[in-house]
């Protein structure tokens, strides 16, 4: 049996029965990484050995996106500007994982500073989709999604600012959850857009997602935006039945440009859930078409402010230009940031600085925040009539490497269905629901009211227990490219 392709709950059962050990699990993962990561490039660094306490509750290794601080580990956001930065502390989620006895397996590849939807903007080179290595895994948590799909990880954490957990989950055929804003502490997550960022799990099935959420969710005094809402036992929401639930289908999500295969997979999912008792109604989210524009004002604005701290003063990269231009310190700032940031990071810093600058603030940033209010209200109104909203996660399956890299607007539009959940703060999950004819995974997205993650788990679990998509694994060839 291949331990590395098992789910965490399957491994916990095997451990309980004495049929395997933590050491065996760890070495099966290291073997998989050695065999496949030359091709997939999901990891930027891995642990050499792992020690789990003998009495650990959940000693199943986890992989972590490269923007979450792990004490003593280089943590770089896959950017040149943070190379050689060694985190002096653990993020709150890492402390929580350690308390549960979960060993850390490695840091996974990502778009630089999480700016991207394809994991192509990493300074470590692109990650490849395990289902078709000529395609992107999605992004920005593409390393985490690809590692889980390829059996190079049992489960993983990512971060989601506009779809960065859900879109790669859909492209790689795994389960990805963006929790409610404030549900999981952001302390130690290197900030991209502070009003949108959330950490969440990428897992092989819904049960593992619930298990990981039980560990990472909760209030944290170190993050003043974390919510003081009690954390339920999410595994109790794993109910194989949707009787009495009303699920909304937003008419605005069936746009031109959505692939027929995605649409058919979604219709299949609706019929499975209907058979298990769910009632479907049409709902309206009239401001959907403005979500991407709103996001590309608010997210770069917050990013340009957050990235101001990477200036060569304290740690990471420092470059002094050879010829003096302004003053020694300003020259150092400007040269360090020019050399340290990649093309997409520069685009976002420039765009964010522009929309916040004097004379443009009202026309762009303030207007964007007002449209954000309209998008939130759409969801409030829709949830008066339904318990959850079902949509495609993405308009198409994974695209080819290089296809959208030089066309930012086309790249941004691949997040058209996921962005609204971040703007309105609601929880949303992507669940595998089939494959295209060419063998690429398709996912649906389920959204619920703030702090109603249990609703997502129930609907997703019902779907999963009545289908078999989550058991499919890609067949990767060994070796490099």
């Amino acid at each position, binding site marked *: 049996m291949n331990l590395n392709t098992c789910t965490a709950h399957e491994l916990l059962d095997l451990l309980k029965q004495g049929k395997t050990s933590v050491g065996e699990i760890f070495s099966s993962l290291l073997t998989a990484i050695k065999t496949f990561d030359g091709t997939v490039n999901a990891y930027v660094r891995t642990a050499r050995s792992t020690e789990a306490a003998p009495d650990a509750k959940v000693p199943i290794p986890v992989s972590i996106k490269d923007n979450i601080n792990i004490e003593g580990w280089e943590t770089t956001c896959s950017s040149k500007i943070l190379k050689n930065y*060694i985190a002096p502390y653990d993020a709150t989620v890492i402390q929580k994982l350690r308390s549960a006895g979960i060993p850390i397996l490695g840091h996974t590849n990502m778009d630089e500073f999480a700016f991207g939807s394809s994991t192509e903007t990493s300074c470590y080179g692109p990650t490849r989709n395990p289902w078709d290595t000529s395609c992107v895994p999605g992004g920005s948590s593409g390393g985490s999604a690809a590692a889980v799909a390829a059996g190079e990880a049992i489960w993983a954490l990512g971060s989601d600012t506009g779809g960065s957990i859900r879109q790669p989950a859909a492209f790689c055929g795994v389960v990805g959850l963006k929790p409610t804003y404030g549900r999981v502490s952001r302390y130690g997550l290197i900030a991209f857009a502070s009003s949108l960022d959330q950490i969440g799990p990428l897992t092989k099935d819904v049960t593992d997602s619930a298990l990981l959420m039980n560990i990472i969710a909760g209030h944290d005094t170190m993050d003043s935006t974390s919510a003081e809402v009690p954390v339920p036992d999410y595994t109790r929401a794993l109910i194989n039945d949707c009787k009495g639930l009303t699920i909304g289908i937003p008419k605005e999500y069936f746009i031109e440009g959505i692939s027929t295969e995605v649409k058919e997979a979604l219709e299949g999912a609706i019929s499975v859930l209907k058979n298990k008792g769910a009632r479907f109604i049409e709902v309206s989210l009239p401001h959907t078409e403005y979500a991407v524009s709103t996001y*590309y004002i608010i997210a770069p604005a917050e990013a340009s402010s957050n990235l101001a701290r990477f200036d060569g003063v304290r740690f990471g990269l420092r470059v002094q230009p050879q010829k003096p231009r302004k003053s020694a310190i300003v020259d*150092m700032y400007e*040269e360090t940031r020019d050399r340290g940031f990649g093309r997409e990071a520069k685009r976002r810093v420039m765009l964010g600085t*522009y929309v916040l600058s004097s004379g443009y603030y009202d*026309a762009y940033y303030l207007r964007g925040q007002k449209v954000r209010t309209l998008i939130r209200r759409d969801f409030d109104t829709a949830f008066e009539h339904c318990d959850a909203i079902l949509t495609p996660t993405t308009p198409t399956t994974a695209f080819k490497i290089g296809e959208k890299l030089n066309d930012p607007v086309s790249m941004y539009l691949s997040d058209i269905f996921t962005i609204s959940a971040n*703007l309105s703060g609601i929880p949303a999950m992507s669940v595998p629901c089939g494959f295209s004819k060419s063998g690429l995974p398709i996912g649906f997205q389920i959204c619920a009211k703030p702090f109603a993650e249990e609703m997502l788990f129930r609907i997703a679990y019902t779907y999963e227990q009545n289908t078999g998509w989550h058991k499919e694994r890609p067949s990767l060839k060994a070796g490099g490219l």
Partner: protein
Amino acid sequence: MITNTDLQYISALARMSLAEEELKPMAEDLSSILDYIAQLQKLDVTDIKPTSHVLPLKNVYRDDSIKPSLTQEKALSFAISKAKGAFKVPQIVDN
């Protein structure tokens, strides 16, 4: 349309110099993004309050008490350059 003058102004604000060959593609990229987000101008947002964050949080208070935190030594352990217990930077003030 974003001009080179705009780019110079924004990059100075962002403390990020751009090489000569970066200017044209950056102007094109920013212009295409701004063209796309111009669609927001057609919405009527009169009397709509802006959303800066989604949680119903106001001020978050805590006791003003000393808790364990990073030591000076640890905070400086991976500094690019340090002197006398502080981060060292290029000269800021003229002699």
